[in-house]
């Protein structure tokens, strides 16, 4: 039962990005900057850092595929890129795990990598004709700001939750 909590949290974030966040999204009220929520990616990067590479990649691929099917209709893109960033940014070393800024920065770097990958792919597939300058100012910087904030807020509760999970596992083993 306790193992289901983490997938459930990631799934709720997945739903949240498409539904409730869209009611609060700034472009609904006439703001031209695009704040793209990548909350699910942040939690998946944290999973890679604290629970290991294999788990992170698994979450990345599964939820990436769900994202592809439900939100984009272009299969494979998110599945690939989310698995890839979960693999590349899985810095599960003790100094990173202990610090506060490093995991947050890692998550933000992962989002930058993901945004650039998607921008490149969509530009190649002619889904967008947005110029690089516009991409930076209208999309990337606001997105970094929003997700930096979310990562900083969510990191400590997430660490507590991971410690709690480990404690439960240990008592179950005994």
């Amino acid at each position, binding site marked *: 039962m306790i193992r289901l909590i983490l997938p459930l949290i990631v799934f709720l974030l997945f*739903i*949240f*990005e*498409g*539904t*409730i*966040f*869209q*009611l*609060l*999204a700034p*472009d*609904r*009220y*006439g703001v031209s900057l*695009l704040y*793209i*929520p990548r909350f699910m990616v942040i939690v998946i990067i944290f999973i890679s850092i604290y629970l290991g590479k294999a788990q992170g990649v698994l979450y990345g691929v599964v939820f990436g595929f*769900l994202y592809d*099917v*439900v*939100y*984009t*209709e*272009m*299969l*494979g*893109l998110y*599945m*690939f890129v989310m*698995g890839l960033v979960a693999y590349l940014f899985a810095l599960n070393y003790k100094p990173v795990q202990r610090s506060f800024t490093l995991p947050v920065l890692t998550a933000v770097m992962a989002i930058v990598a993901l945004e650039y990958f*998607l921008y490149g792919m*969509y530009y190649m*597939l002619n*889904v*967008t*004709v947005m110029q690089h300058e516009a991409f930076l100012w209208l*999309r990337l910087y606001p997105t970094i700001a929003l997700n930096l904030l979310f990562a900083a807020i969510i990191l400590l509760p997430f660490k507590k939750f991971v410690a709690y999970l480990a404690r439960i596992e240990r008592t179950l083993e005994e």
Partner: protein
Amino acid sequence: MPHFFSNKRLIVLLVSIIILVALIGYSTSDRDRLTRPEQFMRDSVGWIQTIMIRPAHFVAGLFENAREVRFLYEENRLLKARLDEYAQLSVERNLLKDENDTFKRMLEIEESLTDYRMRTALVIHRSPDRWNQHIGINRGSEHGITRNMAVITSDGLIGKVNQVGLFSSTVQLLTDRDRSNRVSAMVHGDNPVFGFIEGYDPETGLLVLRKMEIDAEIEPDQMVLTSGLGGIFPRGLVIGTIKDIEPDEYGLTLNAYVEPAADFYMLDYVIVIERTSTTIEDELEEGDGGM
């Protein structure tokens, strides 16, 4: 990290790139319908989204109400003034409708391009990465929705149904950049001018109406409506008003920039339109994006 990419990992990476390219190729080929597993995943997620969005709407509605209260007095006065006008118009409309029905019966016209049936739907999601402009609605083939039906709000046309599941479907907005995303439209006037809504300029927020005859007489502020000639949409759904007119790149046809009547961002409830007059035979419209 000495063994960052060992042989095994390199092979896994290459295989996943091959799968990625194959999947992209599969999904960019104009698919008429979703596969069963996709439909199932969408419907299940759509069901949860419907549960989550209702309370969210309620809370968001409270805030919006509080903001609107300030303008109520002003708005009320304006609307009261309009009310007299409305009574007069509705009498006139009824008279005209009766007259029209009589004429139609005399001419034995049974159906017209303007006939349609409406179904309301709740917007349950919008793709959070703004690369494509799709929204999800909580109505699917079980409720009679099929591909390419027109979708409007109370203000005007917003797009068409793109993919249909059993209990949910996605709508492609007019602002989506996709080469099959076009609507056959007409400029309303004494001599209607026909063209296609193709493309959207995100910087100005205007739709582009293309392929109109070069000697057509069009003026700014004229209404643009759906023409119903594409075979799928009914005639007479409002798209917007003309803002600007210019010849196209080759000087052979006219392009016009159209200010959309509907707001593509404030979407909570939408109306799906089913045309009731005869549509083109299935084999004829094959391979066509629908208009």
